[in-house]
């Protein structure tokens, strides 16, 4: 009866990765904040995101929600596509196409009553995003073009198309590369009276409510409809979906169209809620941030809503940080990357421990 005790758990590399990612993130904060206290920097971020007793909370929260809105909608777009096993990177281009279609609609239907025009802009934006994305889906199922490649390419097409049009047919008379503004009557209503936020008008608009509604709708679609169930089966195991007799190609294109519609909606809402007009730098990369937002949200609509709120708060917070301390708001990218690494690490670690579970 000889024998040594079996070696206890060996090193868990992926958990180390989590720690490393967090450490890198925090250290970077420290480095970037060399001229300030890291504590003060973090405080500035927190104040920017949720406010404090001195400046009040409503304004900061409003800013956070406004920043979260496009992240949430594009994040939902990523969730719908990726859950179907379509790794679309095209949220950015679809968002731009949505904004483009919305502003073109605003130009063409200028004389419509405000709410009708808003509705038309939303519909046009969603349709344009859906079409742009479905194009990549169609290329995949008919021509075998990987959607990862085609959606990235279509992002560039959309970006330069916007650049071309805002300096051409859609340009407002003048020198600036931008379109004419959306008619004021067609802009989303501001939800908070200025008196509530100390005289400074808060930008929280009713489009944010629409985004939250979209998150709930995505949840219902994915989890309580037959189409959603089929979509998730396809993403989980395409061969099982084919064997079950699902119309696999149709589900793929439909998922891409739906994903694009959400991203296009993001563009239209941002246009009619905040920006008011379209210009080449309209999006600071929401469509790309959407991927970490969706991943951290666990590719689940509700999780994505929470993670979008977190990143929206972070964006508002980092804006405040820049104003207060001069530390660049680029810091947000660092934090985003650290969070993604942490999530990937945790998931890998979970898979490692779950991997041995088949008895």
């Amino acid at each position, binding site marked *: 009866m*000889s024998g040594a005790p*079996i070696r206890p758990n060996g090193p868990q590399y992926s958990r180390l990765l989590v720690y490393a990612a967090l450490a890198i993130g925090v250290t970077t904060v420290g480095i970037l904040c060399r001229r300030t206290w890291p504590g003060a920097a973090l405080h500035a971020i927190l104040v920017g995101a949720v406010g404090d007793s001195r400046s009040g909370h409503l304004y900061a929260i409003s800013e956070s929600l406004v920043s979260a809105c496009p992240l949430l909608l594009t994040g939902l777009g990523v969730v719908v596509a990726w859950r179907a096993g379509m790794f679309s990177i095209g949220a950015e281009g679809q968002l731009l196409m949505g904004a483009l279609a919305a502003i073109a609609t605003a130009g063409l239907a200028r004389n419509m009553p405000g709410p009708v025009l808003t509705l038309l802009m939303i519909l046009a934006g969603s349709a344009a995003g859906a079409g742009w994305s479905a194009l990549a889906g169609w290329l995949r199922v008919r021509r075998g073009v990987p959607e990862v490649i085609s959606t990235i390419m279509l992002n560039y097409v959309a970006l330069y198309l916007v650049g071309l049009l805002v300096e051409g047919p859609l340009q407002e008379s003048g020198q600036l590369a931008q379109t004419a503004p959306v008619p004021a009557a067609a802009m989303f209503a501001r939800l908070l009276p200025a008196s509530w936020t100390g005289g400074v008008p808060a930008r929280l608009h009713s489009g944010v409510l629409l985004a939250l509604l979209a998150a709930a709708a995505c949840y219902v679609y994915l989890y309580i409809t037959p189409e959603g169930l089929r979509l998730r089966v396809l993403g989980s195991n395409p061969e099982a979906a*084919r064997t079950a007799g699902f119309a696999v190609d149709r589900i793929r294109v439909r998922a891409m169209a739906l994903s694009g519609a959400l991203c296009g909606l993001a563009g239209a809402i941002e246009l009619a809620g905040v920006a008011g007009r379209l210009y080449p730098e309209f999006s600071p990369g929401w469509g790309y941030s959407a991927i970490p937002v969706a991943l951290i949200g666990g590719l689940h609509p509700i999780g994505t809503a929470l993670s979008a709120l977190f990143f929206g708060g972070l964006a508002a917070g980092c804006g405040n940080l820049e104003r207060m301390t001069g530390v660049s708001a680029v810091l947000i990218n660092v934090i985003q990357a650290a969070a993604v690494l942490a999530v990937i690490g945790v998931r890998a670690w979970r898979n490692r421990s779950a991997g*041995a579970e088949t008895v």
Partner: protein
Amino acid sequence: MEEPSGASAPRIEMRRIVKRYGPTLALDGMDFDAAPGEIHALLGENGAGKSTLMRVLAGLVRPDSGEIALDGRPVGIGSPTDARVLGIAMVHQHFTLVPAFTVLENLALSAGRDPMRSIPVRLAAEAAIERARELGWTLDGNARVGSLSVGSQQRVEIVKALATEAETLIFDEPTAVLAPPEVEELFAVLRRLRDGGRTVVLIAHKLAEILAVADRVTVLRLGSSVASIRTSDTTAEQLASWMVGAAPPAHPAADATPSPRPAVDACGSADPRDLLVVRGLCVAGDRDELRLQGVDFQVSGGDIFGIGGVDGNGQSELAEALVGLRPAAAGTVLWRGEPLLRGRGISIGYIPQDRRRSGLALDMTIEENLILSAIEDPVNRRGPFLNRRALRELAAGLASRFDVRAGSLDLAGSSLSGGNQQKVVVARELHAQPDLVVAVNPTRGLDIAATRFVHEQLLAARDRGAAVVLISTDLDEISALCARAAILSFGRLQPFQVGHVSAADLGLLLGGIATRRGAI
């Protein structure tokens, strides 16, 4: 438990191994030992702990406690690499090959280096293929593994293990995918390995196989070892009773009433009672090669038609053509005289060959996997939405009726054992009383109880009038369930009279050589 008399020091000694998965005690203080120059079989039902015990030995699972010694020396096996260094290799039930790589590249991978650059490794892989040829297996080194049949993939897996020069080889149900002649070949290989002084551990279900090839057998039940005995000192009945805790009742098919149709009419003329009629069916495979070359048969309601033969002879293509997943290159599949279209006036229950690859969405919940095909039923809808309460009740009912053993139906499908995963597929495909049932190797890798259960379900489908097509590599299964059968080899059907074929004739049939009546 007694040490084998006269044997040298055991090569493997495992003492008081405990492994717990959540609430389940997979290994409950298990003892196991195996000597050099011995074929040692591990016998037990699904979930008895056979695979877990061997995964501990292969470094894939870390036990919660226990001790392992090799040749009397205590060792710690923390990873598969440790196991390889210690000379332990495992041939898995579910293959560990990279589908996108070629056979050569996969073999080179197991040598542990970059398959693309290292030329000596490539030579080693070619040596492994040469060794496979000595065993009587022809492997095309440049074929992509993903394009090979399950049977061929297993050969690659076995050759991979042999190539590591391991002193201890663990085989996890190697015969599950093989036809009788191949099983004999494999056993010859195992005996040769044993005679060379290696320790061969064989995880197995089939009592006859164990008695035929193993020197010693250890019987497992509920995570502990029940008995360890030389095979010459025991009988199939005794092993079976140890395994299930009581003698298993007779096989249900033994007293099943035979179909009224004469068996000789295997592929004969059409009959008005025939529901499914297949005529001149030719089907292309994934690489556009013709996998079925003119297949004719028909099945009436209340009949099970068996199709035997070795995997990779057109079985999966035939099944997919029957259920409408693969277009016919030529010929017809008729249902009640009309071309068969899935979802048009016919409900089909399809049990695919590989539950993990095509039967289940493993990272979705057990409930979702159970209800996958039931969502088409208006009863389970509420307007455009799913009626979640109805579906939840349905899933719970199916789980209890089909004896799916799960802690909770909200767990991922991957948390189930193989047998329970198969029960999920069977429950989903058969509960709605389909008109046509197509089952491909429905009991592959299942234990006696689960196998019996699946067979009962197929017989029940037959008895309520469904047309059943059973495609299986297990000719015992076909003989037990089918009144009429045929062998599919090289894309053609050969008639096969159940119970009246000699082993020699069977070998010829499987080899694609027609006997007596000639090709159809």
